[in-house]
C-alpha cells in the first residue's frame, strides 16, 4: 500500500499530469489519423523524452498507448477507416450505426467500453504483475532462456499473413541485436570495421525507420484516396439502462482482451477480433450485427483497450513485451537505465504503480477528450496526407539525429524505413523484428550464462521443470496452426 501511495505521489506532480494528458492527446490524434499509429508515435517520442524523468517519460508513453487504441475507433466509426488496426472490428458496427444517424451514440459506446475495458485490465495488472514478478524472481538464466524462447515462438501467431515470416523477422531482430562488441568476450561482431557499429545498433533510429518511415512509403501509394465523412456534433454517453444491457458483453470482452494482452506478442488487434466474435456468438440479436449493433461496438472496444493494459503485465513483470507498442516502452525503459523484469517490481515498485496510475488517468483522459473534442476529431482525418507525411519525416529525421547527434543514425533510420517497406510488401512484419531486437540481449545473455552453468551440455536445460514447461509451451505455440485446426474442426 505504501508503494502505491509513493507511486501516485511521484505521478501527481503538475508536470507529469500535463505530460500524461499530452500523451493522451497525441495518442487520440495519431490513433484517429489513418496510417499513423501508437507504435510510430512512441518511437518518435522516445528520443525527445530521454531527457525527462523516467516516471514522466514512461507515463507519457503508457498514456499515449492507451489513448491511441481508442483514437483508432473514431475514424473507424466516422469514416469507416480504422485509424489503427485494433479498431478494424469496431468499424463493422460502428460505421453502420453512424450512418444510421447516431454517430455520437456510436462514439459514446466506444469510449465508455474502452474506459471500462482499460480499468478492468488495470485491476488485473495491479494484482497479476507483482504475482508474476514474484514467481519470476525464482528464475535462473535457464528459465529466462526458456521464457524468452517461448516469447519468440509467440511471434509466429502475431497478426500478419505468415507465421514463418514473423519468426524469420523476430530472429533477424535477435541477430541485429548481436551487432557490436560482445559483452562477455569483448569480440567485435558484424561491425565490418564501421566504428559506429561497435556499440551496436541504436534502438531509436531502427524503431523510427520501421514504424514511421516505412509507413510514409506505404502511404505514398495512396495519396489520393477519398473518404466519405459523417459529421459528429457531440459524443453521446450511453444511458445507465443501456450499459446494464451491455454489461456482460463488456465484462466478457474485457476478460478476453486482458488475457490476450498478457500473452507475449499477442496484441490488441487479435483481442478486438476475438471480442467482436464472442459478442456476436453470445448475442440474442445476432441479426443486428453488421447493421449497427451496440454489442458489436462495445465487444471489440472493451477487448482492445483491455489488451493494452494486459500487455503491460509481461512487459513490466518479466521484461517480455506483450505487443509492438509495449516493445517500444520496454526499449524506452532500457534506455532510461531500468532493467525490466521482476527486479523492476521488487526494487522500484513505486515506479510500476506510477505507470499504473498514468494508465488510469489516461483512460479517463481520453473519455474527457472524446466528450469535448468529438467534432474536432471527426475533422482531423481530413488533414491532407500530402502535408502530413512530410511532417512525419521531419520528426523522424530530428528524432533519429537528436538521440546521439549522429548522421549515421539518420542513415540507419532511412535504411530501416526501406527495409520495413520491403518486408511489409513480402509479408514480413516489422513488429516481430523489433520484439526480436529487444529480446535479443535477454536471449543471448541467458543462453550464455546457462551454457556456462551447464558446462556446455544442452541436455541440462531439461533438468528444470520450468524450462521444460516453457519448451512445451513453445512447441504448442509453434504447432498451433495444426492443432488449432483439428480442435476447431471437432
Amino acid at each position: 500500500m505504501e508503494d502505491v501511495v509513493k507511486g501516485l505521489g511521484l505521478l501527481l506532480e503538475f508536470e507529469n499530469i500535463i505530460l500524461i494528458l499530452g500523451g493522451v492527446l497525441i495518442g487520440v490524434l495519431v490513433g484517429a489519423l489513418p496510417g499513423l499509429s501508437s507504435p510510430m508515435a512512441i518511437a518518435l517520442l522516445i528520443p525527445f523524452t530521454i531527457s525527462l524523468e523516467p516516471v514522466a517519460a514512461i507515463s507519457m508513453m503508457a498514456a499515449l498507448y492507451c489513448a491511441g487504441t481508442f483514437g483508432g475507433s473514431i475514424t473507424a466509426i466516422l469514416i469507416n477507416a480504422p485509424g489503427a488496426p485494433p479498431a478494424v472490428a469496431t468499424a463493422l458496427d460502428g460505421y453502420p450505426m453512424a450512418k444510421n444517424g447516431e454517430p455520437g451514440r456510436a462514439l459514446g459506446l466506444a469510449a465508455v467500453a474502452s474506459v471500462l475495458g482499460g480499468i478492468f485490465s488495470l485491476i488485473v495488472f495491479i494484482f497479476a504483475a507483482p504475482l508474476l514478478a514474484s514467481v519470476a524472481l525464482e528464475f535462473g538464466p535457464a528459465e529466462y532462456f526458456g521464457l524468452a524462447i517461448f516469447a519468440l515462438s509467440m511471434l509466429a501467431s502475431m497478426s500478419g499473413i505468415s507465421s514463418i515470416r514473423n519468426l524469420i523477422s523476430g530472429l533477424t531482430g535477435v541477430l541485429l541485436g548481436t551487432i557490436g562488441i560482445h559483452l562477455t568476450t569483448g569480440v567485435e561482431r558484424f561491425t565490418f570495421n564501421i566504428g559506429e557499429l561497435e556499440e551496436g545498433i541504436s534502438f531509436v533510429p531502427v524503431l523510427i525507420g520501421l514504424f514511421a518511415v516505412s509507413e510514409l512509403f506505404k502511404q505514398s501509394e495512396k495519396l489520393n484516396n477519398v473518404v466519405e465523412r459523417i459529421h459528429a456534433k457531440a459524443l453521446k454517453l450511453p444511458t445507465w439502462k443501456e450499459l446494464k444491457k451491455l454489461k456482460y458483453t463488456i465484462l466478457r470482452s474485457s476478460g478476453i482482451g486482458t488475457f490476450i494482452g498478457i500473452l507475449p506478442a499477442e496484441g490488441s488487434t487479435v483481442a478486438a477480433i476475438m471480442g467482436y466474435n464472442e459478442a456476436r456468438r453470445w448475442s440474442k440479436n445476432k441479426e443486428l450485427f453488421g447493421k449497427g449493433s451496440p454489442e458489436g461496438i462495445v465487444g471489440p472496444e472493451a477487448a482492445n483497450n483491455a489488451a493494452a493494459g494486459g500487455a503491460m503485465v509481461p512487459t513490466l513483470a518479466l521484461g517480455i513485451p506483450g505487443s509492438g507498442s509495449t516493445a517500444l516502452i520496454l526499449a524506452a525503459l532500457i534506455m532510461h537505465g531500468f532493467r525490466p523484469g521482476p527486479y523492476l517490481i521488487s526494487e522500484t515498485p513505486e515506479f510500476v504503480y506510477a505507470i499504473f496510475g498514468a494508465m488510469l488517468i489516461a483512460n479517463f483522459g481520453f473519455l474527457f477528450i472524446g466528450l469535448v473534442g468529438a467534432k474536432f476529431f471527426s475533422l482531423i482525418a481530413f488533414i491532407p496526407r500530402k502535408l502530413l507525411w512530410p511532417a512525419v519525416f521531419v520528426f523522424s529525421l530530428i528524432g533519429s539525429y537528436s538521440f546521439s547527434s549522429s548522421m549515421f543514425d539518420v542513415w540507419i533510420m532511412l535504411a530501416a524505413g526501406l527495409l520495413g517497406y520491403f518486408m511489409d510488401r513480402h509479408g514480413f512484419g516489422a513488429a516481430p523484428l523489433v520484439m526480436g531486437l529487444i529480446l535479443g540481449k535477454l536471449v543471448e545473455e541467458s543462453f550464455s550464462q546457462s551454457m556456462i552453468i551447464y558446462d556446455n551440455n544442452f541436455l541440462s536445460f531439461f533438468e528444470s521443470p520450468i524450462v521444460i514447461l516453457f519448451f512445451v509451451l513453445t512447441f504448442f505455440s509453434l504447432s498451433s496452426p495444426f492443432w488449432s485446426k483439428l480442435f476447431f474442426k471437432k
Partner: protein
Amino acid sequence: MDKNKSAPINLGALINKTDLIITIVLIIIISVLWFETKNFEKASDLFANNIPAEMFPQILLIVILGMVLVLPFEHLLLKKNKKDIDSNRKKSIPNTTLFTMLLLTVIVAFSEILGAILTMIAICAALPIYWKEYRAKVLILYIIFFPLSVVFLFNFVLGVYFEPGLLEYILN
C-alpha cells in the same frame, strides 16, 4: 481412371517465384554473415568460458536458414488457409513510391551541407510538390511555418541542438 494419379508434378506451381528470389537473396546474406562469423577474433579462454562469440549468431543463422528454405513452398500452406501471399505485391511498386524513396535519400545525403533548417524546408517543399499539392497559399504557409514551429519547439523549448549549415553560413 484417376486423373490426379497420372498428372505430372508441376514444379512451377509448387514454387512461388518471388519467394524463390527472396530465398536466394536471404541465403546469400546468410552465407556472407556465416563467413563473417568465421572471421571473429578469438577471445582468450579466460573470457570465453567455452562460449565463443560466434556460437550464438551461428545458431541463429542456421535456424533462420532452415525457415528461409520453406519460403518458396509456403504459398501452398497459405492457400489452404485462404491467404494469398501475393495479394500485397501483385502490382509493381508505383513510381511515386520509388521516387519518394530516392528523393528522401538525396535530401538526407545533402542534409549535412544544408543544415537542419534548410533540410526541413527541402522536405516540406519537395515532397508535397512532387505529390502534386499545388495549392500555392497552403504550400507557402506550410513550407515557412512548419519548419519554423519545429525549430521553435525543439530548439528553443526542448533544447535540441540543430546542426548549422548553408543557411547559417550565408547569414553569418
